[in-house]
């Protein structure tokens, strides 16, 4: 057996792309201009001759047109020579840094290489990928900064300075079976809590006591597998015990007791809407399967799910986001009898990427690195799966520094008669897809805990690495098997692995699982590790015994591994065996219904409304300063808002996603004359032979949560719905999803703000007739660390993502947001109110207070319906919603996207404040207020009367025209008591506006 190393270098004259980007990122980190050379390489272990190895190096590993190879037995001197001196040149001394995956971490390229080597008729025992960096000599501390902050991620990779001295790279170890029990029946309360902590069970004392009582009654100790199964099943991640629990809520309107908070708010809204729709109900399956399902057309339904993958992304942004996408795709694949994924949507919350490294709390990754990693992770999984990523948003706030949020959504298309599943007694339990390894142990329980600066160390096992191609292969065979009727039920292996998938699927029946049958990535896993591993790309099927040979053959024909690992036995028990020995035997009912119900307290104290004013400064002297805001000029404020990170163009991100694959793209994320204006929503045709479209959009306003989470929630719904309506979606067919990401909900005030948001959701969804069909929460998003001997905690702002899925009968009726023709009229639909609280106007001017935007629910319903009528009648040429930055930003985006100018008269803008009551400065309200339910609409002259007739009964006004001058000109409203002629408050070139908008994130 030999351990070979093959290194791949750029050929002379070819660019070193990895070296170049590493040097650029080192500069961002403040390490100055470093000279960095790189190579990528492979370690190959096996009985392979030098001649064969040379062939592999040239014909498999290297691309000889642009690359050269060096290879030899590991430790061969020449492998480690700096490319700068390799050809005999002089160069200053450098340090060689090797980066390798840690043993056991998924290495998809190495897996492919193993198979590709076999295709040459050769046999390797193991392959491992590596990267090599030669860096000009650096002081030790800066070298450490470079390796830990940039070159390697300690949670999945190891760094070796200097030559490699490995002997072998296979990670198998032997496992000696021994059934383990855990002493619990005699433990004190303190010891119970300690046990929960040391095993990362994340169970509370009451829950531990319940388990203790259960096993006392059984007169035995639980096995480790039993204890772990209970912890997984009862985890926040799997059971939503907080939000679906009893909550005693109090706010200014009095007290309310919830038996199941989610059921009585979010679900209740859907139930009421469905009841009111009666026979026209278009919901199919809500809040019970992995994704919500609604009716699409005569043949198909559509499913939608949005997941959070926050904790793993904080620790390993690439792998976390990668597996977040992989996980949510499995959710729709595991919905009903399996939906075909048709598009992805990804929303992120990060700290600003320009935060100085010195201001970061200890233990967090730099937000720029988090953002790069997350975007790459989403890109690589979605693109490889061949699923277009069509919609998203990025929200920046410093409080996400320790808890970045990553929301991954997937929409699936499913034949109507395949929308439900039912496993049958005696069906086989079949695992399909990836093998089981030690990756992701305790993901479900870890994700329910608070992150600390130590998390990176203790939870390395919770990080998974995805392999999108494995999942694509699973998807291909699964959809074929579905259409051939080869199984009765399917679900994904997500958090909790087999324990959750089998436990859920067999909950009503009972199951026996033979853990030794599960195919492993490497030997040495204990039965409990097999049971709770969160290794990726696995699905579980319930297969009638007579169908198994056909399913087995289908999977083999596409090189997908499928294994019988047990049987659904009608016993009501969950029995686990390892080589015939029973290692767990539990009552399904205790598992699913035994969790003690905890009553939590929730309090909401309304915040007194304050007028808009300069935010309080921390220095005492500033208190003496004038309370009158000292603002920038209107134009400067305008440009600052366009350049603020939440508003600025996300083209750098969007271009890295394939938003065209599957060939159904109708409205793309970027649109307009130069394909770079921001669309309100994405539209695609999932059935290529049909004109019917799916519309995807989202809404999120964490800044409004500081005022009142009720209005924040309603604003989020209004934003998601109006984005859908803006492109042409029918407002009576929009389904919505909720994703709550909140702080530590054991605190009554934090939970109270969440309950209040849920009440807002109920009230608005019911009026708009937009049912919630699925949701997911992520609680305890706080980051704790020590600074100057004190414990500090950063709590994320309350963050509610609303995702919307609309439909259009005929995509050719859709409209985009770019201005089309000079001379057309501009209408504002919806009234502007004095609502600058939480606005980007306040943000860029350092203001606090003000009124937070509210939603007039009845008027919103009417407005959406009227505008849809106008759009679907073909009266509208362009439409864009008013959101962050208000009318000013909307007008600018429409103008530069269309390459046209516009004239707007603020005096004409519809507003709830009568002209006589407007004070000086009200123009800023008209320009920048972020009031809900508003649109700016381009209408040809010829359609004027029909458009105005369609909008009868809702606030709207003709406020300007499209011009071909290439300038955005906004006239101030004359102040009532001063009869002055209107002046240009804003007169800016669209190129200037566009540059302000594009520059900040043009990476």
């Amino acid at each position, binding site marked *: 057996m030999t351990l070979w190393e093959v290194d791949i270098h750029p050929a002379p004259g070819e660019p070193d792309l990895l070296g170049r980007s590493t040097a650029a990122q080192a500069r961002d980190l403040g390490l100055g201009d470093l000279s960095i050379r790189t190579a990528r390489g492979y370690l190959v272990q096996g009985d392979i001759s030098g001649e064969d190895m040379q062939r592999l190096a040239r014909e498999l590993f290297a691309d000889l047109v642009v690359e050269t190879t060096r290879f030899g037995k590991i430790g061969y001197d020449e492998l480690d020579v700096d490319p700068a001196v390799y050809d005999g040149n002089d160069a200053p001394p450098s340090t060689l840094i090797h980066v390798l995956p840690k043993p056991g971490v998924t290495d998809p390229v190495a897996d492919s290489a193993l198979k590709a080597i076999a295709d040459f008729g050769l046999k390797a025992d193991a392959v491992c990928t590596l990267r090599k960096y030669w860096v000009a000599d650096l002081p030790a501390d800066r070298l450490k900064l470079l390796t830990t902050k940039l070159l390697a991620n300690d949670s999945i990779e190891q760094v070796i300075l200097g030559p490699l001295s490995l002997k072998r790279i296979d990670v198998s170890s032997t496992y000696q079976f021994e059934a383990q029990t855990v002493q619990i029946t005699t433990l004190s309360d303190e010891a119970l809590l300690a046990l929960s902590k040391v095993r990362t069970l994340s169970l509370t004392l009451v829950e531990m006591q319940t388990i203790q009582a259960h096993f006392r009654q059984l007169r035995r100790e639980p096995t480790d597998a039993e204890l772990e199964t209970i912890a997984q099943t009862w985890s926040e991640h799997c059971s939503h015990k907080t939000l679906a629990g009893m909550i005693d809520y109090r706010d200014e309107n009095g007290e309310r007791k919830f038996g199941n908070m989610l059921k009585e708010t979010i679900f209740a809204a859907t139930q009421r809407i469905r009841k009111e729709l009666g026979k026209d109900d278009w919901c199919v399956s809500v809040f019970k399967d992995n994704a919500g399902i609604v009716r699409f057309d005569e043949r198909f339904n559509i499913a939608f799910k949005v997941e959070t993958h926050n904790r793993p992304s904080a620790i390993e942004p690439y792998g976390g986001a990668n597996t977040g996408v992989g996980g949510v795709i499995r959710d729709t694949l595991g919905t009903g009898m399996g939906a075909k994924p048709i598009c992805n949507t990804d929303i992120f919350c990060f700290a600003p990427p320009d935060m100085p490294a010195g201001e970061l709390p200890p233990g967090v990754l730099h937000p720029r690195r988090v953002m790069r990693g997350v975007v790459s992770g989403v890109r690589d999984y979605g693109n490889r799966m061949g699923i277009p990523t069509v919609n998203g948003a990025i929200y920046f706030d410093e409080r996400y520094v320790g808890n970045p949020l990553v929301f991954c959504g997937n929409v699936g298309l499913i034949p109507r008669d395949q929308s439900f599943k039912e496993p049958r007694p005696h069906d086989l339990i079949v695992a399909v897809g990836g093998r089981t390894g030690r990756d992701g142990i305790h993901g479900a329980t870890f994700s329910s805990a608070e992150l600390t600066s130590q998390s990176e160390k203790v939870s390395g096992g919770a990080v998974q690495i995805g392999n999108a191609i494995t999942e694509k292969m699973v998807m291909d065979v699964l959809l074929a098997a579905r259409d051939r009727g080869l199984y009765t039920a399917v679900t994904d292996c997500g958090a909790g692995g087999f324990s959750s998938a089998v436990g859920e699927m067999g909950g009503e029946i009972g199951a026996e699982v033979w853990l030794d049958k599960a195919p492993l990535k490497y030997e040495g896993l204990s039965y409990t590790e097999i049971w709770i591993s969160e290794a990726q790309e696995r699905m579980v099927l319930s297969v009638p015994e007579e169908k198994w040979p056909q399913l087995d053959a289908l999977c083999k024909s596409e090189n997908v591994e499928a294994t019988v690992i047990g049987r659904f036995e009608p016993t009501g028990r969950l029995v686990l065996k390892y080589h015939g020995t029973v290692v767990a035997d539990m009552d399904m009912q205790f598992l699913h219904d035994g969790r003690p119900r905890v009553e939590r307290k929730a309090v909401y104290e309304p915040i007194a409304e304050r007028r808009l004013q300069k935010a309080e400064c921390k220095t005492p002297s500033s208190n003496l300063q004038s309370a009158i805001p000292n603002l920038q000029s209107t134009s400067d404020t305008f440009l600052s808002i366009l350049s603020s990170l939440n508003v600025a163009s996300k083209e750098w991100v969007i271009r890295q996603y394939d938003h065209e694959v599957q060939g159904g793209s109708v409205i793309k994320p970027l*649109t307009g004359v130069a394909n770079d204006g921001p669309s309100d929503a994405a539209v695609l045709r999932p059935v290529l032979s049909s004109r019917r479209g799916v519309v995807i959009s989202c809404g999120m306003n964490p800044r409004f949560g500081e005022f009142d989470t009720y209005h924040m929630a309603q604003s989020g719904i209004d934003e998601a719905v109006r984005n859908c309506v803006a492109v042409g979606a029918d407002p009576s067919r929009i389904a919505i999803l909720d994703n709550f990401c909140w702080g530590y909900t054991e605190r009554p005030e934090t939970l109270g703000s969440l309950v209040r948001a849920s009440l807002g959701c109920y009230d608005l969804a019911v009026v708009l007739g937009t049912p919630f069909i699925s949701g997911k929460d992520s609680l305890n998003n706080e980051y704790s660390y020590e600074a100057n001997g004190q414990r500090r905690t950063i709590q994320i702002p309350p963050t509610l993502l609303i995702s919307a899925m609309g439909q259009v009968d005929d995509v050719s009726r859709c409209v985009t947001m770019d201005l089309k023709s000079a001379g057309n009229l501009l209408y504002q639909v919806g009234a502007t109110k004095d609502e600058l609280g939480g606005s980007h106007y306040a943000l860029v001017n350092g203001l606090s207070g003000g009124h937070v935007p509210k939603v007039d629910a009845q008027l919103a319903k009417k407005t959406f319906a009227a505008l849809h009528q106008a759009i679907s009648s073909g009266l509208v040429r362009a439409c864009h919603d008013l959101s962050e930055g208000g009318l000013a930003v909307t007008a600018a985006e429409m103008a530069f996207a269309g390459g046209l100018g516009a004239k707007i008269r603020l005096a004409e803008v519809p507003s709830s404040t009568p002209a006589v009551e407007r004070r000086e400065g009200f123009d800023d309200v008209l320009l920048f207020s972020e009031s809900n339910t508003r649109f700016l609409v381009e209408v040809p002259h010829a359609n004027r009367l029909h458009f105005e007739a369609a909008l009868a009964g809702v606030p709207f006004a003709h406020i300007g025209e499209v011009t071909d001058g290439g300038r955005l000109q906004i006239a101030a409203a004359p102040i009532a008591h001063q009869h002055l002629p209107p002046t240009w408050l804003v007169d800016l070139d669209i190129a200037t506006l566009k540059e302000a908008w594009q520059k900040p994130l043009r990476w």
Partner: protein
Amino acid sequence: MPTPRIIVLRAPGSNCDQEAAFAFETAGGKAEVVHLNRALENPKILAAAQILCIPGGFSYGDDMSAGRVFGNQIRHHLAGAMQDFKAAGKLILGICNGFQILIKSGVLLPDRADEPIATLTNNDSGKFECRWINLAVEGSKCVFLQGIQQLYVPIAHAEGKFVARDEATLNALERNAQLCLRYCEESGANPKSEIRSPKSFLPYPINPNGAQRNTAGVCDETGRVLGLMPHPERHIDPTQHPRWTREKQERGDGLAVFENAVRFFG
């Protein structure tokens, strides 16, 4: 007109097979998606088709390099079947990953595995990019591009930079009219009269990846085998055009590529 049969050959990680088949069907062909394993088990099945299409995607993860593993499988197991297919006067189309596979397998530009003639390597930008680009057809050698002067279609790739082994190879390919599809500047109001042969190297993002001689597509000596990085199957319907709401389209630009292939057997 007889209906030609098309095999769209997918492998683990292929992902543009459905829309490629749909494009051929829209053009009047009869398309069937077949797993590579079926061809490896029995290379003769390819002979049943008149057109072979290797679609886009990430076959085998594009691990090692794009198209490498699929390309090697052709070199090791299907070289004869491919040779027969070409010799029978049939058509082969490789789109995006399919182009990478046709190059890496030596099907498009016959070569030795350890002495490749050309490659498609990492974009100069160093990243995957999805954007719409303008293409100009050079010469009239390629069957798929007959009668087409320009195309507006999207690219979506990380490894699309065409690089030949050396200048002499590049010159020979160009002389032989095999560099048949080039990235070009957006043409003006009257595109047909303004198409200029893009001789000089065009800047990013007009040439989105830094390809030599702005090469977006290459055909073999016969003009019956075409590989191209852009995706004509993603512009079949007018509403796929990114500006369809402002520039009304009658049909998608890419459809002509598939119609030419089907018509070749008419």
